[in-house]
């Protein structure tokens, strides 16, 4: 998909039994799905799941051979709804998304799915984007498992365990007629490791068979009175079946240790970090042999009460290692022990932080405290590691690096236009959405008030509806528009006569998630229908006032269109569609073509921008209006000036915004554009010689004048 190719990754999906797979965790999951005889796969992209979606998209021939259907769902809700195929038929299906944001969107369908239950294995792969480097709100998928009674797997973060969890997940789902979620933390998705592959399997029961012989069972549909029966089914039959399966198949793991009166209960996903913490404290070796016994929950919901009691019964104290909040597991274990009158002391978030990622240092500190209280001799055996000196007085010394628009990004000029416009018309309420354009809230633009979710930019401005004075501006990307914004935002604004400005950013891709195609993409996609114009779509839902700017870099036009939208007397929503291709993807497509043209001797011109350091006075207005990574600063070469000068580095792609800004904001004459002619033809060379000859004569005069002053 997009302009990136995943040929090498796709090859890995063909590995047969006994061959060794080397690669990323999320790709291992993709392979495991094919090995488990899955009949259909869907999902919605978003880190760390995008890779799975991209690779499957490019692996269409393999999927065809196996008879596997792959769908790029319109949203996570659509993906979850697709699992309906496993309700009536013994078909295995899997969907994937970024969590918890995707699970939020999907929860309507998930609740219905879990109510009626499934016949074929239904697996939901969630990329748990939590902790350091996360791009979303910090919540837990665990809550969704609890509320809808779906089972939650959290396997140890190594490739063999993750691959096994996929197969076990399907089996568990089938054994208990319940959809199963497989939670993978972001680092596990990106971990590079290896496992021994097995052959890919054709689905034993195909989608064609289902369509040819439909099966109906009204009791599986979530409508009263079935819904009341479903609730009882969940607790009376599905839950016990699941617990039986987990126990019998040994999904959770016990690791013994010499110090039997203590124990750690942990989420599988935290296993490696816990082992490293124990190892640092001298309580384990590099192979995971621990002095303290471990009970590893590869299934974090439901807990198996008998196992918990067995592990805890003969122990003085147990530490529950559970990342995130609220402490659902700790509360659950407390309840289990209390019911069994088990007096083992349970620690958890009294020794470990209540919130935030459980990093190595956090676990070292927590486990150390646990040992100090219950078995100080364990620590005394070893030289307790000294805490490294942490130079926290560097807070002001190290510059922050918030994410920002890429070099040459076509969205930057949109926000430059708004910034310039605000100088004329004053500040406006700006409702943001999810996507690259959300970086507008950060320096240097600092534009934006709220973001309420994907495709909800326009909806989030719907309260600000009045017919005079300053209007609210809402921003939405093409990704958000097709995800749900077209109906919940645009159509709804028409219906409610919302007097707001809706700015639609059309960059030809779902750019923030990795450049996937969308209905409005311009690329010809062999297996998808693209080129559906956004303008047609918004007019189709009733928008009367639409302006399309087909080159966002044209700052003046961009500004004029927005100004008109903000000041026109027309009622209802004013939609401005700002179009230009995502530069990252454009470069991926054009760079190889360009390089090849240069190599084969074709006359091609490329552009670059630069700044004359001797006319730049170091005010940096240009940077405050652009923020392009290639527009930077360097020490002033002038011996008298002290402020650094602006400077365009070699990563410049010649998008042209610098020049436009210099013009529109009447900044300074220091910017120049250089057009470089590669492989010039005879005429180019001739005319260039004529020009430089004349210019050289005149320049020599200036030089003579300056030479007399030199010392």
């Amino acid at each position, binding site marked *: 998909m997009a302009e990136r190719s995943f040929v090498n990754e796709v090859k890995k999906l063909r590995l047969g039994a006994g061959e060794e797979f080397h690669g990323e965790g999320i790709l291992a999951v993709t392979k495991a799905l094919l090995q488990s005889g899955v009949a259909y796969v869907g999902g919605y992209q978003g*880190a760390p799941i995008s890779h799975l979606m991209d690779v499957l998209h490019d692996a269409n021939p393999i999927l065809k051979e196996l008879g596997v259907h792959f769908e790029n769902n319109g949203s996570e809700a659509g993906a979850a709804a697709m699992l309906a195929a496993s309700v009536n038929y013994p078909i295995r299906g899997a969907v994937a998304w970024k969590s918890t944001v995707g699970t939020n969107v999907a929860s309507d369908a998930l609740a219905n799915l879990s109510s009626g239950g499934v016949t074929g294995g239904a697996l939901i792969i969630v990329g748990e984007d939590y902790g*350091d*480097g*996360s791009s979303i709100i910090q919540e837990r998928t665990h809550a969704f498992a609890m509320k809808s009674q779906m089972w939650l797997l959290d396997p140890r973060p190594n490739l063999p365990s993750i691959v096994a969890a996929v197969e076990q997940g399907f089996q568990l789902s089938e054994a208990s007629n319940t959809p199963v979620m497989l939670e993978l933390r*972001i*680092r*596990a998705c990106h971990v*590079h490791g290896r496992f021994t592959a097995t052959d890919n399997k054709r689905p034993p029961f195909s989608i064609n068979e289902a369509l040819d012989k439909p099966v109906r069972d009204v009791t599986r549909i979530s409508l009263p009175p079935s819904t009341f029966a479903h609730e009882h089914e969940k607790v009376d039959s599905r839950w016990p079946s699941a617990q039986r399966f987990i126990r019998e198949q040994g999904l959770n793991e016990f690791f013994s240790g010499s110090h039997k009166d203590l124990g750690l209960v942990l989420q599988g996903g935290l*296993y*490696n*970090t816990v082992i490293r913490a124990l190892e*640092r404290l*001298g309580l384990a*070796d*590099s*192979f*995971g*042999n621990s*002095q303290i016994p471990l009970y590893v929950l590869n299934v974090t919901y439901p807990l198996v009460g008998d196992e918990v009691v067995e592990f805890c019964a003969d122990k003085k104290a147990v530490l529950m290692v559970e990342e995130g909040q609220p402490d659902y597991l700790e509360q659950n274990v407390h309840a289990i022990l209390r019911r069994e009158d088990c007096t083992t002391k349970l620690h958890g978030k009294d020794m470990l932080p209540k919130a935030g990622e459980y990093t*190595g*240092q956090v676990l070292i500190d927590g486990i150390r405290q646990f040992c100090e209280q219950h078995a100080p001799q364990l620590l005394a055996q070893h030289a307790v590691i000294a*805490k490294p*000196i*942490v*130079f926290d007085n560097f807070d002001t010394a*190290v510059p922050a690096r918030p*994410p*920002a*628009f*890429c070099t040459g990004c076509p969205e930057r000029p949109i926000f430059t236009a708004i910034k310039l416009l605000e100088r004329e018309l004053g500040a406006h309420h700006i409702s943001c959405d999810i996507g690259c354009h959300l*970086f507008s809230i950060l320096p240097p633009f600092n534009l934006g008030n709220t973001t309420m979710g994907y495709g909800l930019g326009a909806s989030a401005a719907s309260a600000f509806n009045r017919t005079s004075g300053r209007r609210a501006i809402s921003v939405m990307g093409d990704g958000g528009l097709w995800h749900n914004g077209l109906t919940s935002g645009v159509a709804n604004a028409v219906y409610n006569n919302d007097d707001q400005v809706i700015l639609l950013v059309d960059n030809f891709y779902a750019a923030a998630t990795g450049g996937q195609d969308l209905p409005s993409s311009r690329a010809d996609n062999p297996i998808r229908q693209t080129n559906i114009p956004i303008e047609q779509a918004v007019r189709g839902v009733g928008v009367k006032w639409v302006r399309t700017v087909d080159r966002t870099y044209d700052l003046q036009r961009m500004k004029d269109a927005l100004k008109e939208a903000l000041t026109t007397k027309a009622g209802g929503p004013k939609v401005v569609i700002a179009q230009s291709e995502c530069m990252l993807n454009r470069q991926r497509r054009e760079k190889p073509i360009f390089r090849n043209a240069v190599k084969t001797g074709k006359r091609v011109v490329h552009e670059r921008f630069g700044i004359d350091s001797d*006319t730049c*006075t170091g*005010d940096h207005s240009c*940077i405050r209006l652009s923020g392009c990574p290639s527009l*930077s600063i360097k020490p002033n070469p002038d011996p*008298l000036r*002290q*402020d*650094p000068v602006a400077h*365009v580095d*070699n990563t410049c792609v010649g998008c042209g915004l610098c*020049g436009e800004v*210099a013009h529109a904001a*009447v*900044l300074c*004459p220091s910017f*120049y554009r*250089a*057009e470089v002619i590669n492989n*010039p033809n005879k005429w*180019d060379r001739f005319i*260039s010689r004529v*020009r430089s000859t004349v210019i050289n004569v005149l*320049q020599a005069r*200036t*030089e003579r004048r300056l030479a007399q*002053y*030199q*010392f």
Partner: protein
Amino acid sequence: MSEVTTHTRPITIAILAMGGQGGGVLSDWIVNLAEHSGYLAQTTSVPGVAQRTGATIYYLELFPAEAAQIAGRDPVLALMPVPGDVDILIAAEFMEVGRALQRGLITADRTTVIASSHRVYGITEKTAMGNGIHDPEPIRKNATIAAKRFIHFDMNATAEANGSVISAVLFGALAASTALPLSREAYEAAIRRGGVGVEPSLKAFSAGMEQAIAEPVTAVPDDPLANQTTNARVLELLDRIQTRHPEQVRRNAQEGIRRMMDYQDTEYAEHYLERLERIIDLEHANGGASHDYQLSAETARYLALWMSYEDTIRVADLKTRSERFKRVREEVKVKNDQITYVTEFMHPRVEEICDTLPSGVGNWIMRSPRVCRLLGRLTHRGRHIRTTKLTGFFMLYTLAGMRRWRRKTLRFTVEDKRINAWLERVEKLIPDDPKLAIEVIECQRLVKGYGDTHARGWRSFDTIMRVLDRHSDRPDLPAQVRRLRDAGLEDEDGKSLELLVNELDQFPDRAPVLASSRD
């Protein structure tokens, strides 16, 4: 029950890079290198939004395959660096070393630090209205203490010189550090197996290796007094500086006259020295030697900058020079078989046009709204001027030639008056309050740029001068002027400055209640 064995530990490597710096390529090379050299390798990263220019940590662990074979099981490798447990720390940018120190990832007992000393400035460093660059020195000092070994040089420059990317140079420096017990050949084989940009990568790798073990070269400062001129008038000016100016002032004064002649002519340089020497004499008479003639030295700097204000003539002059053409070709890396054309983005408004006209005419236009409007319509849009083509060049060249009449222009009259007022104020201050005099001199920093930027700077300058008039008897005035100047550089709409001025006006006799964090 198995015995706990702690003999073999993984080698831990953290790579701190920014999106687009090739941290992924580097970690792939290391994995490839390790897997072909008898190690089990694991790597993770958290790209997420960080791939859009944010800071990213790649983390790798290498474990000897033989030890795993003997143990009969795979090691449990961590997915994130633990403070105090990092063997090799690679930073693709210098300030990222600071981030590693903050996280406790550098320890003296084991961490080899390999860092490029070049800077990729953060957005707040770039957007500052003056100099927002963070000082790398504390980080260099602390990393030297904290690390077992600290290899750092400008790897970006090495990469560029070798037509490659920084990851290859870092890989070379890693090989040179011998922090991994592997041969150079093994490293090179990993690059070859990677298959992308192999030749330039190998070249940069090799350069990185060499430079990592080379002794640092200390730059020899060039002699500012290298005297090569035979021009009698220039010699006279230089001699005047040598004999009449205190040593501390000479360097700036020399740069000053160089600039004046470049800007105008020798007479203008003389005028500059006359103005400067009035300050020197006054400072000397008031014990200037005891504080190193700081005021005179700074006056030499700021007076030269002011007297070479950037008018249209100056811009046209600089844009058409042959050295500028050469610099552009170097900056955009034009090769000999390529032809390049340069386009300027000019936006001369009515103000700039009048500035270049004789002051009488210019003033007349500025006072006549009708003519202003008419000219305004003509200058509404910016202009693209192609300096490397004949029409564009002639236009700018002719404009640059108007230098001869510069002294008659409206802009000159205005600036001359302002400079005189500024110097007079300073001269009056020297006997009683030399500290304040320096602060006033430094206020010139505010007045820079073009168009609106220049107007805003002048407004801030003027505001501060008015505060000086209102509060001339305040004892802490020098400190307050510095605060005002910083406030003027704080934001574009002048809010910080306005707030501070209000505060001073409200509390005229005492130190302000609201202490500034910048002091």
